[in-house]
């Protein structure tokens, strides 16, 4: 998702802007077609994609537990989303609006197949049902990302409870704060009203209220095209907290715990890449040149990252591994997520490579140094990669670096302009967003993990852990070859 720059700059600047006549909202079947498929792609990147990427890395006795966790999280989040999640995230929260939405759209009240949702172009809309589904897939994958951090040693009951709480108290608020806004036409109307208001304070306040009725972080002017903050940093830090609260796997560091099927991991990684185009390009909500930009960035950043990890591992560890390369690819995907619609291809490629190297360092060195057991490197890849991407977005958006520039919906209401780039402003907004998310999700997740532990107990008995969660918790075996 994009945002409006001018907010940072003095709104007075608007006075100059010409009056603007609202264009009748149009829905293009091409946009709808693209968004329908983009949504499907994001689902595919979660199931089977993410499930296999994670599942392949655990021991076969825990394979099904991972698959079950991911699939269950997706299903339960779907139910929560249409019940109250969408409303809490994407509706006006009244007095609480800068933190969370309201319940006016609970059970999708008032939405039908004629309802439409705004895109990032004035006058261009898509069916609201598509928007709800697309956003739903984001809500589904985010908690699923977390489970990798404490795979092979968590109680299913506990996990399900945690995830339901987590989306409610961590994901929905953050998503609302970063992505909820009135849309281009509201801003245009607001700007016009402001211009017309002259010195009439009441009118000025009304207009400003209209312009600023957005999420807190959005109003800071932070950029997050497809969810670097909302999805990856958010889930990544929750994962770290989780693996610390739950503790290490029995035998961690002592027994060998090789991935039981790198084939599944490779399939998963590939589907993640494939599906990620729905994730990043789809985040443009339209089918146009910016969408294409998001796509090419998602290609080159990932490729650059995969190649970077491949070679650095070859150099430092002596052998180029498949697991290393695909991990790099995922790191690149994570890093480019917030930047996908803002950076230029060359910037994105460099970003991918850099993120890959840093994540390599975190997964292979930092983790061992501190000895926490982030089983599948959720923190090392998603949180770290997400932070690098979020910060880099504030730099690469600069047109001078081939970026698409900071969108500005206000200076000329009804049109999309590029705002002048000011490093300090753009970069600080990113820093604030990152820190805020780390804090909110870190603290929130800690509380929720403790709560889950209190109620259900987070960890299975040692015997269960030894036997494997598949048989003990789900009564099934992954393979009977």
């Amino acid at each position, binding site marked *: 998702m994009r945002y409006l720059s001018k907010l940072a700059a003095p709104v007075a600047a608007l006075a100059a802007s010409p009056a603007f006549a609202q264009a009748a909202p149009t829905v293009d079947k091409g946009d709808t077609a693209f968004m329908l498929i983009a949504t499907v792609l994001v689902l595919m990147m979660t199931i089977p994609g993410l499930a296999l990427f994670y599942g392949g890395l655990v021991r076969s006795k825990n394979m099904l537990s991972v698959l079950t966790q991911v699939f269950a999280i997706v299903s339960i989040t779907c139910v929560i989303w249409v019940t109250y999640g969408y409303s809490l995230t994407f509706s006006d929260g009244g007095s609480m609006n800068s933190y969370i939405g309201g319940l006016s759209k609970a059970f999708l009240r008032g939405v039908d197949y004629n309802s439409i949702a705004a895109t990032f172009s004035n006058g261009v809309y898509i069916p609201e049902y598509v928007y709800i589904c697309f956003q739903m897939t984001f809500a589904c994958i985010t908690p699923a990302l977390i489970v990798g951090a404490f795979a092979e040693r968590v109680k299913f009951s506990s996990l399900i409870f945690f995830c339901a709480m987590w989306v409610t108290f961590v994901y929905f608020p953050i998503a609302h704060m970063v992505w909820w806004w009135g849309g281009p036409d509201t801003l245009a109307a607001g700007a016009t009203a402001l211009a017309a208001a002259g010195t009439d304070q009441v009118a000025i306040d009304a207009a400003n209220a209209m312009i600023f009725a957005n999420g807190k972080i959005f109003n800071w002017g932070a950029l997050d095209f497809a969810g670097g903050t909302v999805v990856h940093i958010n889930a990544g830090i929750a994962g770290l907290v989780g693996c610390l609260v739950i503790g290490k796997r029995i*035998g961690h560091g*002592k*027994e*060998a715990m090789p991935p039981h099927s790198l084939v599944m991991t490779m399939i998963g990684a590939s589907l993640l890449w494939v599906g990620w185009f729905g994730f990043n390009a789809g985040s443009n909500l339209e089918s146009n040149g910016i969408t294409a930009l998001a796509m090419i960035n998602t290609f080159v950043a990932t490729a650059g990252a995969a190649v970077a990890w491949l070679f650095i591992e070859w150099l430092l560890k002596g052998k180029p591994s498949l697991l290393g390369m695909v991990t790099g690819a995922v790191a690149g995907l994570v890093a480019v997520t917030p930047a996908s619609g803002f950076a230029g291809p060359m910037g994105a490629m460099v970003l991918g490579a850099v993120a890959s190297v840093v994540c390599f360092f975190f997964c292979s060195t930092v983790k061992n140094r501190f000895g926490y057991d982030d089983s599948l490197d959720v923190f090392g890849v998603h949180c770290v990669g997400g932070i690098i991407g979020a910060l880099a977005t504030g730099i690469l958006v600069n047109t001078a670096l081939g970026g698409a520039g900071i969108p500005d919906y206000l200076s000329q209401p009804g049109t999309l302009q590029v705002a002048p780039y000011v490093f300090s402003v753009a970069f600080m907004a990113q820093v604030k967003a990152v820190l805020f998310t780390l804090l909110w999700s870190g603290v929130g997740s800690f509380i929720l993990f403790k709560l889950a532990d209190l109620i259900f107990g987070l960890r299975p008995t040692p015997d269960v852990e*030894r*036997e494997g969660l598949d*048989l003990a918790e789900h*009564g*099934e*075996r992954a393979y009977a070859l």
Partner: protein
Amino acid sequence: MKLIIAVIKPFKLEEVREALTAIGVQGLMVSEVKGYGRQAGHTEIYRGAEYVVNFVPKVKLELVVPDNQVAKIMETLTNTARTGKIGDGKIFVLDVEQAVRVRTGEAGEEAL
């Protein structure tokens, strides 16, 4: 020479191997087996169908050793493989008449 066959719990394998190496065992064979014994199995449910599985995964160690080492090895095995819980396994000893190292053709204890 004797053939020592030991059935133990899978997760004990590394520990046992190290202990044996420590006391000078230079070679052995490991195979995965399904064990049946006092230790209870588990039940699996697939939709309508329920299966009781009586077998428990175990690993079987086979090593041929000079007679004079048998006692020491048995002791090491019992100590390291023991958890005190049912299913710890067994150790059996059989007599071996001859041993040959393929590479060199050496026979008898030299072959071990």
